[in-house]
């Protein structure tokens, strides 16, 4: 440890450190346990641990239902990510660029969906989509997930736009860029980190989302819905294996997004 900072109290510092470790331990213990037990040979999660095994991963890999769930999750996640980011960008840019009557209402409505309890949203989606014959397939999951994810994409991109010098876009026009050219050569490059960040975050959100997908997915179940199916039938360490896999995938996306969003003055590769 370097020289002691006279403005800080050692006891308080140590107390805060312990508090932080405990808080993280509380949050991550279940995930760590799931990770550990996914390599444990015992059928039931109990201590002491049995021997190390990859059997549960093998069992998961051999299950065609898991594969179809994973495929659904992946396809839905990618499409949801792309559509949500496009919609989010449009909404954020509209907010950035234009002043209009009722803008507060526009913003409130655009950011509203994630605040609705998922059970209510899931039920409402099911009722609505079945009425227009869109329920029970991958498309219905995509539609529902876009509703949940687009506001997140909007919030992320909006934050980035708020950090932009307001003179940047007019400066591009002033130098001869039409509105479309300014969008392509100034707004998009400036927002690129946030756009990719939003893409990864919304994909991760969609991968993990269970409740709404459970209501509307029908036979095209996504992986989280499938996990629930497993749980209802039998308690199997396979769930730990799937859980670990999904966790690592989601974390990877979130960390990627974090890296992109925290990079200062990010500069995209030379395009020509």
């Amino acid at each position, binding site marked *: 440890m370097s020289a002691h900072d006279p403005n800080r109290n050692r006891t308080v510092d140590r107390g805060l450190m312990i508090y932080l470790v405990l808080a993280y331990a509380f949050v991550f213990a279940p995930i760590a346990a799931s990770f550990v037990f996914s390599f444990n040979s015992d059928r039931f999660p109990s201590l002491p641990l049995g021997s190390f095994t990859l059997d549960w991963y093998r069992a998961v890999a051999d299950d065609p239902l898991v594969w179809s769930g994973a495929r659904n999750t992946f396809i839905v996640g990618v499409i949801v990510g792309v559509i949500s980011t496009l919609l989010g960008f449009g909404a954020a840019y509209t907010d950035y660029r234009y002043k209009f009557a009722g803008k507060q209402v526009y913003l409130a409505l655009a950011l509203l969906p994630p605040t609705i309890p998922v059970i209510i949203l899931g039920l409402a989606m099911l009722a609505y989509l079945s009425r227009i014959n869109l329920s029970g397939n991958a498309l219905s999951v995509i539609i529902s997930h876009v509703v949940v994810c687009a506001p997140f994409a909007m919030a992320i991109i909006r934050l980035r736009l708020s950090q932009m010098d307001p003179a940047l876009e007019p400066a591009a*026009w*002033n130098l*001869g*860029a039409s509105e479309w050219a300014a969008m392509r*050569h100034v707004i998009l*490059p400036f927002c*690129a980190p946030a756009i990719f960040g939003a893409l990864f975050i919304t994909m991760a959100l969609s991968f993990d989302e269970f409740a709404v997908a459970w209501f509307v997915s029908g036979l095209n179940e996504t992986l989280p819905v499938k996990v629930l199916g497993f749980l209802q039938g039998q308690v199997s360490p396979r769930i730990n294996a799937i859980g670990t896999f999904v966790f690592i995938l989601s974390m990877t996306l979130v960390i990627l997004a974090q890296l992109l969003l925290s990079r200062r003055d990010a500069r995209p590769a030379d395009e020509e």
Partner: protein
Amino acid sequence: MTPDTLVSFEGVVKRFGGFVAVQRLDFEIRKGEFLAIMGSSGCGKTTTLRMLAGLEAPSEGVIRLSGQPVNDLPTWRRDTPMVWQSLALFPFLNVRENVEFALKMRGTPKAERRRRAEQWLERMHIGEFAERNISQLSGGQRQRVALARSLVVEPEILLLDEPLSALDAALKVRMQSVLKNLQRETGITFVYVTHSQSEAFSMADRVVIMSRGKIEQIGTPQDIYRRPGTRFVAEFLGSSNIFQGTLARDAQGGSALETPLGSFATENITGLEAGAQATMTVLDTKTHLAAERPAGERNVLAARMIGEEFVGSVATIYLEAAGGQEIRVQKGHDQLAALPLEIGRELFVHWNPADAHIIAEA
């Protein structure tokens, strides 16, 4: 409109909701001149510049560029590049790419735009930074990038919106001479918006002084300094002593301004009748100080010294006349050395009637 005219504002008004930012502007910008638009914040100077660039639409009136009305021309078709107060350099492009931007938007082939960008980078002495990121440059270097980025298209007119306000004093003075030389060499018309009198007066051929959305005076710096057109201009420049009163004939048949501080003779009252309300301005450099009441002077005013301020080789003495009016006298140090300068001491301020300037207004 003369063949010299590059830009004309004809009855231009700009309202934002109920707020009138610019009220009925009528003036012309000549080809190849360095025009400064000066005023305090909120006077409408930046709005005027933005209307010329097409970033704000006039509520009324016509703006002509080379004789053509441009009211309906979008910004990107105007060819009125601007140097922004924030500089607004593109942070995701390097120096060269920033300078090439305008050429790229005009579809100039890659080799050509590279050549022209490099030419301007050299000219602005920043060639060695071509591949750097904007964040790696100092304030002065960024300034040069911003100038190169705007000038690379070799426009007829360059707009500058307080571009030096972020620089420190020494750099400011250096950039002023860079700008002035650049303008002289290229012959490009510069329209320079600033709140700084020293920037406007040291660079501009003509200065427009604005207040509350109106033009108070247009003229050369010399003209405005010596003969402020309105009381506002005299007060804004702050280098004149100002007296208000009524014009009268004095005993010798000359003219004088009757003020609460006394009767002051003047010779410059062309077109004004006795009995008219008027303002007299006397530059602080044209007022003199004496320890005893000087004999033979027609304009003498007793005042108590309240302070002094040194600026380089000259000092400004602040005095208070009857009624609390502040009087300023600026003199070289050797001229002041002979005077008994003590705070609170009564001194006599005098000036030549020929140095008094009369403004016809109350």
